[in-house]
């Protein structure tokens, strides 16, 4: 008989292996696709690797691309722990960018230590407000947060369009839809003289913090109960709705940090193409990581590598950027398919052992489906 700890480890190992297998499968299927269009998959994949981790420049670009994905992924994870599916991190990212931009353009500070914290707070508040609305709709009148968060992404994007074409338009350059450049004090510090910035530090701190608090604290426990079985949480008199609303608020605030760090450290101004879908990629990263905060960091690094690798692929192999989107989509698909399979494996030996005590197991689900 396996001892408790071993069993826990075995389960974690199975999930890690399962994810790995899903990713490998995705690469294999995409390889078939590449062969069909007449490319050598080995060369393409080596190209992606070189572009992602080949030298210090590619590595720093990978980290830059991974940062907003990490923050968005963590945002998704926080809501998901309490059973709320936040598809709106993209919009919350934009709201964070709007909040930070407002402070950068309108506050007459000249010191970074004054400017940056205020930008951060403004961004977090705006992002939190954006996720608070669907959260409130969900817990009060039961509007599906999946739909409302998704739709609010478009509203956020249009809001940005409105601001950069209207009130916040760059007075010096009317032809480009963007705001004026931020003052120097509104630029988030960069690390090691590269484009890598403080945002990645935020992401890692947030991930570590949650990884530590979630399993060890009372609030973390209650959150996990709500996420795993809201009925039981209700039965135990937990304040399910209040917790879920707070999860949405914090989720939006964390995602907003991605917007803040993008405008502050990378763009230096607000413009509409700020995020090439970091929110959605973060969503993918979160599910790949099975909502585990540390795993979100690792997966985001890999996806960041994929993205920056794709950039160089476009130049070297003359393959469209969409190739990487296909690969990403494949990974997500394989991962979802592997989920059930792993679940069954993870509990298999217990189920069998348990039969001597009871055999009131439901018939296999495939069979039940026919009934």
């Amino acid at each position, binding site marked *: 008989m396996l*001892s408790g700890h071993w069993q826990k480890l075995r389960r974690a190992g199975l999930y890690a292996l399962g994810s790995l297998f899903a990713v490998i499968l995705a690469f294999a299927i995409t390889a078939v696709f590449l062969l069909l269009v007449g490319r050598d998959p080995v060369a393409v994949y080596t190209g992606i690797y070189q572009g992602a981790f080949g030298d210090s420049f590619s590595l720093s670009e990978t980290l830059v691309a991974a940062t907003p994905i990490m923050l968005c992924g963590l945002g998704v994870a926080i809501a998901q722990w309490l059973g709320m599916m936040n598809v709106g991190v993209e919009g919350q990212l934009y709201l964070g960018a709007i909040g930070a931009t407002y402070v950068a353009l309108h506050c007459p500070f000249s010191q970074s230590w004054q400017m940056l914290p205020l930008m951060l707070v403004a961004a977090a508040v705006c992002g939190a407000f954006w996720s608070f609305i669907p959260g409130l709709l969900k817990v009060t009148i039961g509007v599906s947060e999946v739909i409302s968060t998704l739709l609010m992404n478009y509203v956020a994007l249009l809001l940005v369009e409105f601001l950069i074409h209207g009130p916040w338009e760059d007075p010096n350059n009317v032809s480009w839809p963007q705001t004026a450049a931020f003052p120097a004090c509104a630029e988030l510090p960069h690390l090691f003289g590269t484009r890598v910035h403080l945002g990645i530090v935020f992401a890692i701190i947030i991930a570590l913090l949650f990884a530590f608090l979630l399993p060890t604290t009372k609030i973390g426990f209650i959150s*996990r109960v709500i996420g795993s079985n809201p009925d039981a949480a209700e039965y135990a008199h937990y304040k399910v709705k209040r917790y879920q609303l707070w999860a949405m608020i914090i989720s939006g605030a964390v995602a907003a940090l991605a917007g803040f760090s993008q405008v502050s450290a990378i763009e230096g101004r607000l413009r509409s193409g700020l995020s090439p879908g970091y929110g959605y990629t973060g969503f993918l990263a979160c599910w790949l990581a099975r909502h585990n905060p540390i795993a979100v960091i690792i997966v985001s690094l890999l996806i960041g590598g994929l993205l920056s690798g794709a950039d160089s692929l476009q130049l070297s192999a003359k393959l469209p950027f969409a190739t990487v989107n296909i690969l990403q989509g494949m990974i997500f698909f394989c991962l979802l398919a592997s989920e059930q399979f792993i679940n069954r494996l993870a509990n298999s030996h217990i189920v069998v052992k348990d039969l*001597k005590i*009871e055999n009131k197991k439901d018939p296999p689900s495939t069979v039940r489906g*026919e009934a």
Partner: protein
Amino acid sequence: MPEMSSAALISRSSQSRVGNKAQLEELTICCDHITKHFGPVIANDSVSCTIESGGIHAFLGENGAGKSTLMKILSGYYQPDAGSIHINGEPVSLKSPADARRLGIGMVHQQFTLVPSLTVLENILLGQADTPMILRPKKQAAAIAEKAAQYGINLDLHAPVSRLNMAEKQKVEILKLLWRNARILILDEPTSHLAPLESAEILSTMARLSMSGKIVILITHHIEELLKFAKMISVLRQGKLVANFSAESVQAEELARLMIGESFNAEIDGKIYSFETENNVANLELRGVNVKSSPTNKALKDLNIEIKSGEVHGIAGVMGSGQDELTAVLSGHLLPEKGEVFIKGQRSAWKDLSTPHKSVSHIPADAKRGSLPNLTLLENMLLRGIHKQELLFGPFIKQKEAERMTKERIETFDVRPKHTFALGGSLSGGNLQRLILAREFAKSAPLMVAVNPTASLDLAMSLRIRKDFRKYAADGKSVLLISPDLDELLKTCDRISVMFGGRVVGTEHVSNLNAESLGLLMGGNDRAAVQS
């Protein structure tokens, strides 16, 4: 309970007429030395038996005795390691449920497989291999109605399943099989969630079916019931067939002994306590409690109930008489529209739900609601104790303390597997229920509200739990036991309140009650009529 006894009479008398029905095709299914292992565990150990039409054939056994495994082999879900199955002497191969279905074997599982939002008709047509692409509901409805009438099943085909009660849902499941021309019907614990009258109705329907040439196999651990309705009884214990005889030739005590084996003791039939609570103070009293009506649930109407300290107080009643609402009010999940609550004689301000839930442990009817399948046993234990100061260090949970507590509790209640990191979802029904019981007993609240707590437990464990309830109450606490099992109520409680239409229509000491008078009260007859 006149309905029940007359139903029993029908089944008995029709059994005696079986010889005259020579025109009906005789059907037999024969298991020949069926053996099935799961890893090192033998679920079925060379089981041989012959099952015939013309009367219900019941399989009796404790949880884990191998009944369900045998039935799943018969219905093609499992393949035996050794042994063979013959229908009318022909060997058959059951490689899949589809094979079994082709041969006319159908099973009704304990958990219904109905779609609540669809009508009865739609549910019956659903998933049939020969349902045409374009449904012609009228034509189909007529044919199904005819089939239903043929077997005396009374159902509104156009009612949505969500509006049906448990017994009606059970009938839909049966009709579904009949519509597929099943000739061998297997029912897994069909009455475990039914009130006695409903059970009697279902079982007499089944008896009728078996008379008309179908094989009806019933899995149960409810002895009284099958003595009334079954013709043949097979008893399984630890995977072996230990007895096989006609229901007329056997006594309840003997069956219980065969079922449990060595550990059987004399407590099975007698009351397990002698405790006088007449003069005790009330731990909790509800006066004039009203709960708002919703379209699907009957409300509570001026409900009065008094639960004394040291008392196990039973609630009997047909399902949907307001038991769910009463439970919700007591466990602090529902704030009554009006009404007063007295705790130990003190009137309590009832402005929010926090008052009741701190002083009530609660065993919910559905184990899924009381447990966390994706979290560990340790976390399952913490579910209701997370606010306890001794488990917390500031905002942090004391892991060692929590683990020690969990180990202790799963040891006392014999939850298996024994390690604290196993997932809740890996536990079987009985173990899960024991886990919940362990947790709620440990809460040690002045009042325990238990809803159908022994439904998924075997007899030995049920007896233990009933004794534990008595012990719990003996400390000056109280237990409110809500159960459809009248036998359990009569053997465990001091007093029983009967609910009907959202109110308590009578509260009596058990010494003044028996199953029959309880049954009458549950049907809405007033007390005077019962006593006369």
